[in-house]
């Protein structure tokens, strides 16, 4: 069983859902993000948030995958002040919806004053609502941007054990872990983490507070980032226990703090959900071993993600 705690499913196809379910993904977290095209109306942003708690949650359920999401104003669109102000008014209503496990993904892109303003405002909201936070760390000026994100979290009085710093790499992981945060790694070709590099990090750091995700989205990315990394790690001699921590348990531990995500959601769903919103899962139906091999052939050919 795997959890992919960062997957932008609005940008993915039904093939991906099938493939992920076949590979043993039982739950995923979809962070609110920049959909590639800037939104210029508050209403389009609101409808996007509605689709995360509504349609996409239902869609995932049809494939036997439990869908959770994080609600937030992303750093890119925080730079449109009129939009940002409007979105901020709506966020509290969405943050309390079912299956919302954190405020996120929030943080810095170009590290502008407006990004800083809305990052802080959303950290305050997370504190008020007692929700975990998913922090997106910037692609550019990454090391300083990551340190700064943690500085601001602490300045705003957040408990690091409620915050996931995502998109770590070899340069940022030490500080993230030393300061008490959860360290997310996005197994994403070219721009983020590769899974062979990830295995090396697991050898060095073990599994405590490390979380592997795919961050799959509208770009060239792989929705099997989590199961492929698990398989490569096991083949490389990483223990079952560590693999389970980084591909399942740690994500459940931190996002479970929201009270909106527990293993019984997929292992023992309420009867009303089984009738309406969740098609059950392959584990309970007693079928297959969750392995990358069970995914359709076109997906499994290349084990390495680089």
């Amino acid at each position, binding site marked *: 069983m795997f959890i992919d705690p960062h997957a932008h499913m609005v940008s993915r196809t039904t093939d991906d859902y099938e493939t992920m379910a076949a590979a043993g993904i039982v739950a995923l977290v979809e962070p609110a993000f920049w959909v590639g095209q800037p939104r210029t109306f508050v209403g389009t942003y609101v409808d996007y948030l509605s689709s995360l708690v509504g349609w996409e949650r239902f869609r995932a359920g049809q494939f036997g995958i439990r869908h959770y999401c994080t609600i937030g104003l992303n750093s890119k669109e925080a730079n449109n002040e009129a939009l940002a102000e409007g979105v901020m008014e709506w966020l509290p209503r969405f943050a309390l919806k*079912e299956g919302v496990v954190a405020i996120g993904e929030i943080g810095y892109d170009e590290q502008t004053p407006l990004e800083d303003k809305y990052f802080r405002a959303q950290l305050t909201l997370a504190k008020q609502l007692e929700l975990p936070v998913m922090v997106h760390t910037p692609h550019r000026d990454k090391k300083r941007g990551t340190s700064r994100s943690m500085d601001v979290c602490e300045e705003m009085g957040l408990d690091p054990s409620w915050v996931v710093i995502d998109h770590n790499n070899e340069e940022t992981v030490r500080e993230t872990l030393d300061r008490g945060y959860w360290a997310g790694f996005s197994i994403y070709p070219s721009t983020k983490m590769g899974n062979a590099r990830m295995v090396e990090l697991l050898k060095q750091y073990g599994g405590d507070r490390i979380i592997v995700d795919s961050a799959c989205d509208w770009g060239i990315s792989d929705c099997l980032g989590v199961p492929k990394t698990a398989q490569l790690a096991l083949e490389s001699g990483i223990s079952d226990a560590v693999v389970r921590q980084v591909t399942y348990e740690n994500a459940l531990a931190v996002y479970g703090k929201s009270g909106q995500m527990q293993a019984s959601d997929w292992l023992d769903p309420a009867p*009303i959900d089984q009738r309406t919103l969740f098609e059950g899962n392959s584990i309970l139906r007693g079928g297959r071993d969750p392995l990358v091999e069970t995914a359709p052939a076109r997906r499994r050919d290349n084990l390495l993600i680089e």
Partner: protein
Amino acid sequence: MSVTSLKLLRGWICRQAPEQANWLAEQYALLSQKGNEKDLHLFLGLIPRRMSKQDLVLSPQDLTLANQAYPGWNPSGWSLDGAARIAALLTFHGPRPFSAMFQDLVRTADARELVTLYRGLALYPEPESLAFEVGEGLRSNMRAVFESIVHRNPYPRDHFDEHRWNHMVLKALFIGSRLGPIVGLDERANLELARILLDYAQERWAAGRQVSPELWRCIGPFAERVSAYEALQRALTGTPIERGAAALALTAADTPTARSLLLTAPDTAALVADGRLSWDNLTLQEAA
């Protein structure tokens, strides 16, 4: 009307979740007295966090009382937290019209919440004013949302015009949903619907697909006027369930042609004639 429904709902909720009775009473009092929408949003968000999502436990007597409070109201299949949310909407009295508030709730609802909001439709104040939101729900691709309006809900029977009614029935068939749980299915049967459904059946057959035997229920009373005998004859030679459905439809048609067709399937016709086979138990019948 809804005062009684509300009383029933609150009674069932407190019976099943006595540990929350005080909290609920406080919250409901707040909603009815202060009428602040923020309080309502917060309460609706908190309910599933504090209360079980299990099914609302109802006795046959409860269902009888529900039907007396609002004819056709059938809360079987409701969840405990959903019932508490609907009770909140019925309790709330705010400055804006109910429909404006409802529109906002639908706009930001999560998947389960949508199902709940629509299940309560018939009980809300000024139900006619919710027509736009109901239309949105019918257009939903989320089957559970569509069914929350269509099944065990008297709202469509009481408030849909013929066009909307007919398209609801057609969509139910189209997505493989049952017709049996539609409240008022026989009362609202009409000639236009029979025509649409017969066309639909023929289109399916031409494509080599099957049709739901339940469809014949809406055609039966109009079999003569829409010239459905040939199609019914074909159904009469199909699977046991299809044969049963065709026999039920022909019995409802009650014309000389229908009666003569029934003579070609005497065993099935006998099951209908002596009451052993009805639309209510059709899908349970394995062999007829």
